[in-house]
C-alpha cells in the first residue's frame, strides 16, 4: 500500500509537495521531510471542538469535514458590527489560536465553500455582495463545486474549466453526461435551491447567549454572566407568558470544550434572581480551562405561566414562593431524590406504607391522600431500612421473647403486645423465590424493656427455628 501525503505545511508546499503525493516521491524531492502520521479521528474531533467554539457567533455552527466550518450567521452579524466585523473578529481569534484560515461570506453555503477554497482570491477574507454569487463564482475552477474527481476530470477533457463555462452549458446535456450532481451543486451555489445542513445541535427556541470580548474564567465573572443571561432569558419568557423548569448553562471554552451546568425547578419560573442564584450555586463545578469565550443559557423545558394577578389567590401563591425557592435550591444542591414529602401508600407491609412523593409538584394530579391513624396498629417512629437480626429468647415459639440482645446490649422485656401478623404481598412475589409460604409471614411484637425503651420486633417463619429481627424503635 502506498503511503500518501494527507496535508502539507506551507514550507513543504513551497518545496513542491502537494497532498495526495506518494510519500516515497515526496522524500525524494525533499530528503529532510518530517512526517507525522495522519489521525483523521483526532482531526474530526478537533474540528467538532472548533465548531462548538464557533457557537459564540451563532447557534448554527457545524463542522464541515474534513477541513471546514459552516456558520449560518443570518441575523447574528449585526452583533459583531456587520459581516465584515464578524469576519474580522473571527480572523483575529483564529490567528490567536495560530490556526491558518480562509473565510468567505456568501449568500449560499456552496458559494462560500468555493470562495474560501479559491486559489485566486485576494486575502484570507472574501465577502461578496448579496446575489453576487453567479458573478463571483464564474471564474473559479469547476472543482470548487464540490464534485467528484471523475466528473472534474471529464469536464476538463471537454474544456469546461470554470464554473461560468459549466453554467452556460445546457442543463440536459450536463446531466446526461455527468449525472444530477453538477447541476444541483450549481443551483445550490447560486441559491436557486436550498441546501440542507446538519447542525451539531438543533436550535432551541429559548436560549440566551453572551459572547465575551476577552475570555473570562473567575467564578465571579461567570456568575455575573449568568445574571445577564438569566435576565435576558426571563425577559423573553415573560413576554411569552412561559416559565422554565429545566435550564442549562453551557460555557464555551477556548479549546472548544463545553462544560455545562443544569438546574431544574419544581414550579415553572422566570424570576431571574432565583434562576441566577440556582445556577451560581453550581458555578464552582465549572472548569474554565484557559478561559471561557461565550456562555449560552438554554431553557430545555418550559411551561405556560401566567403573570400573577393581584387578587386573593395571589396571597396564597406568595406564601408558596419561599417554599418553592428553598426546595429548588436544596434539590439542585443535594439532588432531587434527596428531598421528598412522605405520602401514605395503601399497603400493610411497613416498608411500603410510606412512599416518597415529590416535595412540590407543579401540577397536582389528585389531592394527596391523607394519613390515618390506627391506634390498634402502632407504628414505630424509626424504621430500619433492613431489619437487624437479634438473638432473642422466647419461652414458647408463639410468644414474645423474654430477653434479647441487640447491638451488644441485653434487653429484658418487661411488657409486650402482639403479635400483629403481616404477610408478604403474594402479588408482588417473584415466581422463582423458593421460600415456603410460612416463611413469608412476620409476627410483629411491640416490647418494652426494663428501662422503658420500646422496640418493634418480629419473628420470621413459623416452622423450624424462628429467627428474630428488630425492625424499628418506638418513641
Amino acid at each position, binding site marked *: 500500500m502506498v503511503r500518501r501525503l494527507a496535508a502539507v505545511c506551507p514550507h513543504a508546499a513551497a518545496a513542491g509537495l502537494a497532498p495526495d503525493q506518494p510519500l516515497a516521491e515526496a522524500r525524494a524531492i525533499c530528503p529532510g521531510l518530517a512526517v507525522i502520521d495522519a489521525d483523521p479521528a483526532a482531526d474530526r474531533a478537533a474540528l467538532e471542538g472548533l465548531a462548538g467554539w464557533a457557537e459564540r457567533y451563532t447557534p448554527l455552527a457545524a463542522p464541515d469535514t474534513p477541513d471546514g466550518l459552516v456558520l449560518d450567521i443570518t441575523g447574528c452579524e449585526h452583533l459583531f458590527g456587520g459581516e465584515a466585523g464578524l469576519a474580522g473578529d473571527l480572523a483575529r481569534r483564529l490567528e490567536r489560536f495560530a490556526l491558518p484560515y480562509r473565510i468567505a461570506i456568501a449568500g449560499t453555503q456552496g458559494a462560500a465553500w468555493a470562495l474560501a477554497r479559491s486559489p485566486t482570491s485576494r486575502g484570507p477574507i472574501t465577502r461578496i455582495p448579496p446575489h453576487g454569487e453567479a458573478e463571483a463564482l464564474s471564474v473559479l475552477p469547476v472543482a470548487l463545486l464540490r464534485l467528484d474527481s471523475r466528473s472534474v476530470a471529464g469536464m476538463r477533457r471537454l474544456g469546461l474549466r470554470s464554473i461560468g463555462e459549466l453554467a452556460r452549458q445546457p442543463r440536459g446535456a450536463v446531466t446526461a453526461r455527468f449525472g444530477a450532481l453538477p447541476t444541483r451543486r450549481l443551483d445550490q451555489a447560486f441559491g436557486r435551491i436550498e441546501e440542507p445542513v446538519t447542525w451539531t445541535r438543533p436550535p432551541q427556541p429559548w436560549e440566551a447567549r453572551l459572547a465575551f470580548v476577552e475570555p473570562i474564567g473567575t467564578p465571579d465573572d461567570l456568575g455575573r454572566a449568568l445574571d445577564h443571561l438569566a435576565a435576558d432569558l426571563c425577559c423573553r419568557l415573560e413576554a411569552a407568558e412561559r416559565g422554565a423548569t429545566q435550564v442549562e448553562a453551557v460555557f464555551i471554552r477556548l479549546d472548544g470544550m463545553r462544560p455545562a451546568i443544569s438546574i431544574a425547578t419544581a414550579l415553572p419560573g422566570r424570576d431571574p434572581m432565583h434562576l441566577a442564584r440556582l445556577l451560581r450555586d453550581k458555578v464552582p463545578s465549572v472548569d474554565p480551562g484557559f478561559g471561557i469565550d461565550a456562555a449560552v443559557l438554554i431553557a430545555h423545558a418550559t411551561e405556560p405561566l401566567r403573570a400573577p394577578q393581584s387578587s386573593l389567590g395571589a396571597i396564597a401563591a406568595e406564601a408558596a414562593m*419561599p*417554599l418553592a*425557592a*428553598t*426546595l429548588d*435550591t*436544596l434539590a439542585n*444542591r*443535594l439532588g432531587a431524590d*434527596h*428531598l*421528598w*414529602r*412522605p*405520602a*401514605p401508600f395503601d399497603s400493610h407491609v*411497613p416498608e411500603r*406504607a*410510606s412512599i*416518597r412523593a415529590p*416535595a412540590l409538584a407543579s401540577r397536582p394530579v389528585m389531592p*394527596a391522600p*391523607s*394519613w*390515618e*391513624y390506627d*391506634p390498634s396498629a*402502632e*407504628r*414505630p*417512629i*424509626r*424504621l*430500619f*431500612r433492613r431489619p437487624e437480626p437479634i438473638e432473642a429468647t422466647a419461652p414458647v415459639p408463639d410468644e414474645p421473647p423474654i430477653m434479647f440482645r441487640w*447491638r451488644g*446490649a441485653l434487653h429484658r422485656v*418487661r*411488657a*409486650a*403486645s402482639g403479635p400483629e401478623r403481616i404477610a408478604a404481598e403474594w402479588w408482588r412475589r417473584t415466581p422463582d423465590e423458593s421460600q415456603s409460604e410460612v416463611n413469608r409471614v412476620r409476627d410483629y411484637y*411491640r*416490647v*418494652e424493656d*426494663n*428501662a*422503658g*425503651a*420500646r422496640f418493634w420486633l418480629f419473628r420470621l417463619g413459623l416452622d423450624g427455628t424462628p429467627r428474630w429481627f428488630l425492625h*424499628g*424503635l*418506638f*418513641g
Partner: protein
Amino acid sequence: MRDECKEQIENLSFVHPLPSSPHDVTPDASLEALRARLAGLQPARARGVWRFGDERVDGCLPGGGVPRGVLHEVSAGGIEAESGAVAAAFLACVLSGMAPAGDVFWIAPTADLYPPGLLPYGFDPGRLVQVLTRNDSETLAVLEAVLRSGAAVAAVGEAGRLGRVAAHRLHLACLRRGSTGFVLRRWPHGRQGDGEAPIAAVTRWDIAAAPSAAAVFAEAGREPGLARWRVRLTHARGGVEGSWIMQAPGGADASHSLRVVAELAPAAAAQPVRSVR
C-alpha cells in the same frame, strides 16, 4: 435649642413625622415613639411562646413557654443517642403543639424517620418535608438555609456535632424569619456525644425513656402502656432547669398533648441518664 433638635429630627425624613405642635410634644412621648419605631425595626424576637399547659413546666421556661422563632436543642443519652427515637417522638409532640399548621422540614443524614410513627403524637406527616443529607455539616448548612428562607414554620436537623459558630448561625437564621429551629443531637454508631459543648440554643432538652405505667400495674396483661419519658430541661436562657416524667399521647387519647406525670426532685434530675454504656 430644643427647636433646633426637633428640626434636625424632622430633617431625617421620618415616615411618621413627630407632632409639630409644641403643646402635645413632651420628651417622654417622642421617646416612646422612637422606642416603638426601634422595636419595629428589630428582628421579630417575640413570636410568642407555646405553653405545655402545665405550670410545673411552663414555670421553668422563659416567658412561660417554649419560645417560637428561636433555636432549641434536643438530645438523648445511651443507645438513644444513636437511634434518636425518643427524642424524635418528643419533638413530634412539641411540633404538633407549637406549629399546628405549615410545612416542617426534617433534615437528617439517615432516612429512618418513619412517617406513620408520627401519627400518635398528633403530627400530620403530610406537612413534613424530609431532606436526606450526606453528613452533619451538610445537615446544618441545609437547616440554616431553610430557617433563613422562612419557607418552613419549623425545621429539625439531626446532627451530632454542633459547634458554637454553627449554633449561633442557626439561632440568627431563626430570628430572621421567625422559623423555629431544632437540632436533634444524634451520634452515629460508636461515637460519643460531647455533653459539654457551648450552648447557643435557647433551650436544651435531654430525653430518656421511662417505664410506662400500664406495664407497672397491669400484671396480667403485661402490655406496654402509653410511652413515658424522663424529660430534663438542662438549659433554658432566662429560665431554670427542671426534670419531669411525661406521658406521651397516643392510643385512644385524642388530645395529642404531653402530660406531666411527676416532677422529679433535683437529686433525681442530677442522676445520670446515660444508663447504657
